């Protein structure tokens, strides 16, 4: 800011924050501003899950996207061509040297060097402090190819980027107190793999609490969510087992299945007809070549897909699994805590007995402000896993402060600690998710995903819009994540918003206002209205921001995020304000 600013190449230490504790607490978890801003997330029993509608942009957008990538790739190759001639030093890591192959060759790294690196400032913004309602990002300027310069200041942004669904990313409160107590009493490390000497009474309590919470007989906890999936399938499946996996399953599930050596078949995302057809054929055909019947078939799906915001069609999946005698694995990494009237995840949301799902997996990172994962299932299954699960014998156990955070946050959610607080958090995330999603739809953005999902992907398509939306929102103090290939298909780059219970309705209004401005500026309001949000059926929704804010509280509480809105609801919305 001033001329005397000194820049460093190293990330500065977090500056001391001298604001009063109440203000800091408010910045991590905003107080509820009105009882009106609550909602209970639950799927009406017996009603079929609406097929998620992925709105399509005008053709011109698709064409422009392809042309954009073509131009980027051509420019990239031109730069590579001349760069190799005139700046060989920049390319020394990409060519053979002294008889050693390069770490990565130019072709492998082309996408990263020539596309991702252009917008590198939008990724991995270093932060400090708890990533709660606000997130503090260090200010930095680009220096050279991959370096940055820091001036020691930071930008406090509204946080729509962190996985903090229930707002437990806090540095004060009962959960933090409990975690601190665990450090004092038990230290910082688990000290040993679980089956050697790493099992303490707190581990057992944590497993009991989580099993009770998700409604299973027993549970087993692992120190990392990725590691939970990556090693699980080796204990369940071998080459004579078929695993049927949704095409958009998380990398950890795919890695785990590959490691187990099981046969894999992939079905179209959330397409239950395709799944059933696949299962029927596979049971009939049996194993390849030998045509012997499969030993068992495991269906692996996620409860809530983190890039699409779609829910799995659990009622139908359970029906199929029962009919065809398969086993069902549901990864609740994003849905546990975030969905259902009691926060118990996808089964709770669909009012289904958890006993009907064989394996419930989840993580503690997203809703509970901790880290790690769990597998919940029948007692016999979990007992077997305690002896036969790779992470139990070879990998570190869960450290005490993390256990403290998990146990205390679960107790807050189920009401045994600070009664009422857990319920409020659950109802706030449900309201906030619907409020923001509907608001964006009304403004005319293409938004994917289910109505109740706290993951809200806003489609951008053009690669150039990714950095522009990220930078513009960042300068208006909103932090969002932009995602593109390889996490999504090449053409459907998106900004992903993760809603949190820590945000207030006023925060979301600010987000909507800023989105509206940015959306106008870089042409993002191109939805057709088939996914909802229209004032009049069939007309693309292009509400003014004032109209949206006036009507949205009531509209978003409609059981189905109205695909058309009657003028009544709009009127009553205006009356409310």
């Amino acid at each position: 800011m001033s001329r005397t600013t000194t820049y460093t190449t190293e990330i500065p230490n977090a500056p001391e924050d001298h604001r009063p504790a109440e203000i800091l607490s408010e910045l991590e978890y905003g107080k509820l501003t009105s009882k009106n801003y609550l909602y209970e997330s639950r799927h009406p029993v017996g009603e079929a899950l609406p097929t998620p509608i992925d709105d399509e942009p005008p053709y011109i957008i698709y064409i422009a996207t392809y042309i954009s990538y073509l131009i980027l790739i051509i420019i990239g190759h031109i730069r590579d061509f001349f760069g190799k001639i005139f700046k060989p030093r920049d390319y020394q890591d990409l060519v053979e040297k002294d008889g050693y192959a390069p770490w990565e060759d130019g072709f492998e790294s082309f996408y990263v060097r020539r596309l991702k690196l252009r917008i590198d400032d939008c990724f991995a913004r270093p932060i400090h402090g708890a990533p709660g309602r606000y997130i503090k990002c260090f200010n930095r300027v680009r220096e050279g190819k991959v370096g940055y310069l820091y001036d020691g200041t930071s930008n406090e942004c509204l946080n729509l980027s962190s996985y903090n669904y229930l707002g437990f990313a806090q540095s004060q409160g009962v959960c933090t107190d409990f975690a601190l107590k665990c450090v004092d009493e038990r230290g910082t490390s688990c000290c040993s793999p679980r089956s050697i000497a790493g099992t303490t009474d707190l581990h057992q309590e944590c497993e009991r609490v989580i099993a009770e919470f998700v409604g299973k007989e027993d549970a087993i906890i692992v120190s990392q969510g990725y590691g939970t999936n990556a090693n699980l399938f080796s204990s369940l499946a071998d080459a004579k087992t078929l695993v049927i996996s949704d095409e958009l399953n998380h990398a950890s599930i795919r890695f785990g299945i590959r490691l187990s050596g099981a046969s894999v078949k992939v079905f179209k995302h959330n397409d239950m007809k395709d799944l059933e057809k696949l299962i029927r054929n596979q049971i009939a055909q049996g194993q390849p070549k030998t045509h012997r019947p499969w030993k068992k078939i495991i269906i692996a799906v996620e409860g809530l897909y983190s890039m699409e915001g779609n829910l799995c069609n659990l009622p139908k999946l359970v029906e199929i699994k029962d009919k065809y005698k398969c086993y069902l694995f549901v990864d609740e990494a994003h849905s546990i805590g975030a969905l259902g009237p009691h926060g118990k995840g996808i089964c709770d949301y669909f009012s289904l007995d958890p006993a009907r799902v064989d394996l419930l997996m989840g993580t503690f990172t997203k809703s509970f402000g901790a880290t790690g994962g769990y597998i919940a299932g029948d007692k016999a299954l979990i007992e077997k896993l305690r002896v036969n699960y790779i992470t139990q014998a070879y990998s570190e156990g869960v450290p005490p402060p993390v256990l403290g955070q998990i146990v205390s946050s679960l107790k807050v959610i189920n009401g045994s600690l600070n009664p009422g607080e857990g319920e409020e958090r659950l109802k706030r995330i449900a309201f906030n998710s619907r409020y923001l999603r509907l608001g964006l739809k009304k403004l005319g953005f293409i938004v994917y995903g289910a109505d109740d999902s706290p993951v809200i992907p806003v489609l951008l398509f053009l690669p150039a819009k990714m950095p522009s939306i990220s930078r513009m929102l960042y300068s208006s103090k909103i932090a969002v994540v932009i995602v593109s290939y390889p996490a999504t298909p090449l053409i459907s780059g998106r900004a992903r918003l993760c809603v949190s219970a820590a945000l207030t309705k006023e925060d979301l209004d600010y987000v909507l206002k800023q989105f509206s401005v940015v959306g106008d500026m870089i042409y993002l309001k191109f939805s057709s209205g088939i996914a909802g949000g229209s004032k009049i059926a069939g007309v693309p929704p292009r509400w003014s921001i004032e109209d949206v804010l006036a009507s949205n509280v009531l509209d978003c509480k409609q059981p189905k995020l109205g695909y058309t809105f009657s003028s009544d609801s709009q009127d009553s919305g205006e009356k409310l304000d």
Partner: protein
Amino acid sequence: MSSVVFTTTTTTTTTTTTTTLPPTWDLVGATLSDNFAHYLDLLGRVPGGQIVLRYIRSSYKNDPIRSLFELALFIFALNYFLSSKKKENKSDLIKFSDREIDDLVDEWVPEPLVEDLTPLERWQLNSIPTIKGKNGSHVIINDKPVVNLASSDFLNLNENQNVKEAAKSSISSAGVGACGPPNFYGTQDVHVRLEEDIAKYLDGEQSILYGQDFVTAGSVIAAFLKRGDLCVVDSGVNLAIQKALIVSRCDIEWYNHNDVDHLEKILVELKPGLDKQKPIRRRFIVTEALFASTGDICTLPKIVELKNKYKYRLFLDESLSIGVLGGTGKGVVEHYGIPRSEIAITIGSMALSFASSGGFCVGVEPMVHHQRIQSNAYVFSASLPPYSAKVASQSIREITSNLNSLGRSQLVQTLHDKTLFVYEALTAASKKSPYFEVISSPHSPIVHLSLKAEYRSQLNLPALYGNTTFLAKGKPAKLLNEFDDFYNIESFVLQKVIDFVLLQSNILVSRSKNIIEHENLPLLNPHLLVYVNNGVSKDELTRATQILPVAFAEVLKNVKNEDTLFDLTDDLVMYDEHYKQL
């Protein structure tokens, strides 16, 4: 090239056929060519058609068969490109009607998701000790104070007040979880600081953090080794590396465990083939520093010499050796006095000596940078909790700040002394015992005790368990290893020793708990493991070294041969009740 060959063969056939044609052929040919000319004319009017026409005219040259042949080739090529790969597999499929499929579905009886624990396995579940309250050098088990010689917190930093304060200060400012992957707002100042600290501590250029130690190897190796790359691997590596190699699908050559002569022989054999390779593929030598399965140390100086001579990069797993080997705990590299720059990739764990959690990888800048986008467990997983990062930084400070007059870390020196003490005491005791021997290196803080080879052969126990498919073929066995009665009973014998020691002296020791089903390499016999740590006094260590030989003698006094060994099966099945009485 190929088309030239084809045309020459066809011209020879045409000369023979035209001579034997009947006269009517001329008539048919004339009408055909009339029609044909008409279509060619049409083609000429299509944009670009003139080029095709010119080609056909120049290739025709009064040779209709040649043109037909080319047309057939064209149709074949078109058909080949348009037919999807899936179609080819269809020949393998049997067609069923819907009703037949329904019947098959009704008929199909799947196996259970997992087999229940059998009476022969259940004891393993019950033999996992449960600690009440804090874990550390002294713990409470079954309401009794117990000396813990099974903890991997070798430097006892889990009980260090500075480390705890570091954790608490971080939790009070940043909470517990990181709430996001490193590339999406999950990187905090403390993470970057730790990466710098680790790089500085281990004399590397840069480092990168992982959320769990076990996934580190699997993710790092898979980021660099792809199909067609080569690695030469020690055949005693741990499970994490085994799985990593399987996932990477690279070519694997195995050398005998810690046998550098064998390694050299393989490198020499491979050289002629590799010299011709163009372009050069990535090649690695992969080894552990301090082996988890045997407790011995890799012969690093010779390996470094060989890898430089034959131009391989070295992947070194220092999970167990960081904080343990060398004067300031910098691992096997410091132990042998070799610069870290010789090691292309070093991975390690922060869950052991650093009293934190997670893993890390150290090396040159392009190598680390590549992982930030291409390494699965880094990209697709939440960051390490910020407090863990701060704890690890503090632990490094604790190790390096308190040096003695020789420039060696006090903490590490204490561990060395205690380790050597236990090693020597147990080695001396083993010479008098017919039952056990020490097989680990004197520097390994995990002291491995194995049943003596002669005694094992007397009991008819096999030299190795598991399977050799991965070693022999370079591809892992398709099915998991079966449950092994011998492995089970041998483990149980060691468990009885552990229980005896716990009951008699209130000392907890452990045994190797490898899961035989998942091991892809031949598995060594189970070992009794004594985890030395700084928090345990010399007196307590003395007590442990005295009771262990007694325990072996007591447990094995009636075990003389295979039959008497399996007499213990009753005991094993009843273990649950037995354990409750403890």
